[in-house]
């Protein structure tokens, strides 16, 4: 009878001592666990990423910012002049702290300086769009967006909030290595970079926070549970730009749309990272934001949200379009930061 071969038992002298064995058994899994978290954290934040989604975000943000600044400039006396809608005293009474500072208060009595400020803001938005001196343009755009917002905190809505966060994160990486005059000047081929990855992760996480809070805060409202909240937007004469009152004859459709919007918002921050749900979540984002834009007259806000959602697009989607105009780095395709890798 042949006994099966078995591994040679470890000889006691190969182990330093019994306590080392115990320590090894106890702490090895913990060390592996901590190393796993550390590696995951580093890969999530610091792995070089393709910047092509940031290129789209830069151009989209630049165009929206340009539009916003043109509208501010055309209504300058009403919002920034000495007799603007919001006086210093009124601003003082509604702002939450003294930190919401704006240099625009200093130029309200000086039309030339005010005009120069508007011009600077418009030019910085244009530079950001075309990608000339992109990083400086991003920093200037961010500072001016905050300055204009802090001058008129009572005249802002989601559009301004999203532009603010996008310009901030474009300071980290403005996506200027494609479709930009900077790229034309330097003739450098796009390379994956750590800063592009960090910028994309910041936009992605901020967007997840935004949707999660927007969804969770709705859970406090009875209308979102009873399925009639969608009507609240449709039935508001002050928001309406397309007549959707025919929906009164389709109450179940109102219920469905209400529940769908709420479920999408609440689950966005989880499902967007799932390969299967990723396209569904992004498609719903496009439908919801374009729908809000068209039906409730908030197209700038809708477009700003879509631009922010571009942070979740796979760089491979951009490859075909961008490769016609720029030299694409083969390595870049291996380093997406769409959340699905």
């Amino acid at each position, binding site marked *: 009878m042949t006994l099966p071969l078995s591994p040679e038992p470890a000889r006691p002298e190969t182990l330093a001592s019994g306590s080392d064995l115990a320590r090894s058994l106890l702490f090895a899994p913990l060390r592996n666990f901590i190393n796993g978290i550390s590696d995951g954290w580093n890969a999530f934040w610091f792995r070089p990423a393709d910047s092509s989604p940031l290129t789209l975000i830069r151009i989209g943000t630049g165009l929206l910012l340009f539009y916003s600044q043109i509208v501010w400039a055309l209504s300058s006396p009403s919002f920034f002049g000495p007799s603007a809608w919001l006086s210093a005293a009124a601003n003082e*009474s509604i702002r939450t702290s003294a930190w919401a500072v704006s240099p625009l208060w200093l130029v309200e009595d000086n039309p030339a300086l005010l005009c120069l400020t508007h011009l600077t803001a418009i030019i910085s938005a244009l530079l950001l769009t075309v990608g000339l001196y992109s990083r400086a343009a991003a920093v200037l755009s961010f500072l001016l967006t905050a300055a204009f917002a802090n001058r008129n905190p009572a005249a802002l809505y989601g559009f301004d909030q999203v532009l603010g966060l996008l310009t901030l994160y474009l300071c980290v990486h403005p996506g200027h290595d494609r479709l930009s005059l900077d790229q034309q000047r330097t003739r450098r081929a796009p390379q994956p970079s750590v800063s592009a990855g960090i910028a994309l992760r910041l936009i992605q996480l901020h967007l997840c926070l935004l949707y999660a809070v927007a969804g969770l805060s709705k859970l406090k409202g009875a209308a979102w549970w009873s399925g009639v909240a969608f009507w609240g937007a449709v039935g508001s004469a002050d928001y309406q730009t397309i007549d959707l009152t025919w929906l009164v004859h389709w109450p179940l459709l109102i219920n469905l749309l209400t529940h769908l919007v709420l479920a999408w918002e609440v689950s966005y921050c989880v499902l967007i990272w799932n390969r299967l749900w990723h396209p569904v979540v992004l498609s719903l984002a496009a439908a919801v934001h374009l729908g809000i834009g068209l039906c409730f007259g908030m197209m700038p806000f809708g477009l700003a949200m879509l631009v922010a959602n571009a942070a979740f697009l796979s760089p491979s989607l951009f490859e075909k379009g961008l490769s016609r105009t720029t030299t694409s780095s083969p390595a870049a395709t291996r380093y997406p930061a769409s959340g699905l890798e």
Partner: protein
Amino acid sequence: MLHLVAIVSAPWAMSPSSELSQSVFRFFQPWLDAAYLNHGYHFFAPEPGPCHSIRYELQFADGTRAEGVFPDPQAHSPRLLYHRHFMLTETAGRLAVDESSEASLRQLSQSFATHLLAETGAARVQLVLRRRYIPTPEQVATGLPLTAPELLAERPLGTFELSGSQRTAVPSPVRLAERDDYVAQSLRD
């Protein structure tokens, strides 16, 4: 990492909130306020509610009168400009339902009045906050238009005229606004 905690603390500290969330928020508030990142992101939450506009009546030195409303979708174009004006009146509407914000509402009303007087050259302006309630689907199905006068509730904000400095409107001695619980006039309440 600190920035991430900061942007989470802004919506986390929105009322109702805990002492912990408020403490964390206060720590980051300088950065959040200065960088315009202090947002709650409570879009259409807890549920879509009534909207606000301000009706004003101007009185000129020669005795003529003129009326208007802001925001005005015709006058305030493009739509982004309309929304900027809309947010001004929504801020007034938010302050009007909170008794602790009465002083802020008066400051805001005075600011609006100053702007209207400077822009039009009128001698006096009367402001009225209008709240437009959303009709139920059943009401619309039976023919009620979204702009029906029955859906409006009004609260006078005051009558204002320019002070000696000609820069700031002050409440006119002719008529001071009294708090009018206009919310109770609504169809839905």
